[in-house]
């Protein structure tokens, strides 16, 4: 297993009263990672830093053994990542146009784009909404469209912030199964920030607990199930 993401002694000031500070954290290909914690634990801030949307004040982050030193390198790395923010913003247009946006940025062949979009819409029973303006979507459909938009470019790393928010049960199950499939069959690294114990139990192989901007605990293996009652092992 190789380290796809390495965090070394980072300090990032999110705003005046909150910052995240992580000594060392490695994400290896293989497991699905869950970043868990209460509000203001730093989950979203950590994901944004991993997605190269925010620059750390100190320390190093490397993705695919590369540290982004300029905007071109950042763009190149971001094109290998799929990111879903906690409050995603879709752009004016239809569901189909939004899902295809990342593909257009990467200049993916139009025919290939059509195939990928169609496949995603079909997998999540969204075909009949393909040409609907996003302004007319329900909250769950909006969230799902944003998620599909991040999946369409076939990223190697998925960074998802509360991906199952606002989803109905069937869609929730479909999303969980799809993420598991991506990890098992296509070796996509999945890192999700979540407060949902069900998502952690169903998906995560490794859970990283955060509090006040720091990693306080890392749980692996069968000890995942102990996340719910707050007890766990400290992994050295």
């Amino acid at each position, binding site marked *: 297993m190789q380290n796809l993401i390495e965090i070394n002694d980072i300090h990032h000031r999110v705003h005046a009263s909150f910052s995240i500070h992580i000594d060392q954290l490695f994400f290896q290909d293989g497991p699905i990672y869950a970043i868990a914690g209460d509000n203001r634990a730093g989950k979203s801030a950590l994901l*944004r830093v991993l*997605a190269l*949307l925010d620059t750390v004040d100190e320390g190093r982050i490397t993705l695919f053994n590369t540290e982004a030193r300029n*905007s071109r390198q950042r*763009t190149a790395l*971001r*094109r290998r*990542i799929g*990111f879903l*923010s906690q*409050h*995603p*913003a879709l*752009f*004016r247009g239809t569901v189909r146009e939004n899902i295809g*946006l*990342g593909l257009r*940025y*990467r200049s993916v062949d139009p025919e290939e784009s059509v195939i990928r979009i169609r496949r995603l819409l079909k997998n999540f029973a969204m075909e009949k909404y393909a040409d609907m303006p996003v302004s007319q979507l329900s909250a769950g459909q909006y969230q799902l469209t944003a998620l599909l*938009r*991040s999946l369409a*470019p076939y990223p190697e790393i998925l960074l998802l912030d509360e991906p199952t928010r606002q989803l109905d049960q069937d869609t929730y199950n479909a999303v969980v199964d799809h993420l598991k499939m991506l990890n098992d069959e296509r070796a996509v690294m999945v890192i999700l920030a979540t407060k949902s114990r069900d998502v952690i139990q169903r998906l995560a192989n490794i859970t990283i607990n955060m509090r006040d901007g720091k990693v306080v605990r890392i749980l692996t293996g069968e000890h995942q199930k102990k996340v719910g009652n707050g007890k766990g092992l400290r992994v050295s």
Partner: protein
Amino acid sequence: MLIEALQLLIQLNGAVFLNIANALEVAGYIIILALVTGLPIGMLTGVHTFRFRRLVLYLLHIWLFLPATGLGIFISYLHTDQFISPLGFIFWGALLTIPIIAGLTADVISSDSRATRDETLALGASRWQMYATMARQKREQIYGVVTVGIARVFTEIGGFYLMISFVFKQGFPSVPVFELSNAPEHLAVAIGLFLFGVLVYSGLHIVQFKKDT
């Protein structure tokens, strides 16, 4: 005076339309210069956070409200005769219009720029793709900003014609000088009416475009 001005337009008075053509040509150059300069300044200021961003926005808004008379007084201490020329007028007009385009574009873009910017970057957009996406998201508001800029140009040109006709008693160097007996103020009003009509038509066209999209 209004009736005489309308008569000049209805009779398709050659001098009127020659001056209108000159005025539109100058206005066109001003608008192009203001757009080429103001839109990028507004876009960059609206999208990016940088150290003196607030100061830049503040100065743009101060500059935006700079009255033409204030600038005119400043220019009068310079080589005034160089500004009573199409080139000078283009420069002067652009100085008044750039802050409108830049300042209002920055306001329009910055309203939800962080979320939009982050989403586009997260999707793998390059910097230019990000700018294009953000501009597309706000295209109607940007059209509105451009319309306001065009309106400013036309009003300044109308005011300039009044000024040169009443004060200098002459037209642009490239058109015949008007004799006092031709009552140049009617000419200025006629030109102003025509330009106002162009402005209203453009505005209606933009509103229709917005409806269609």
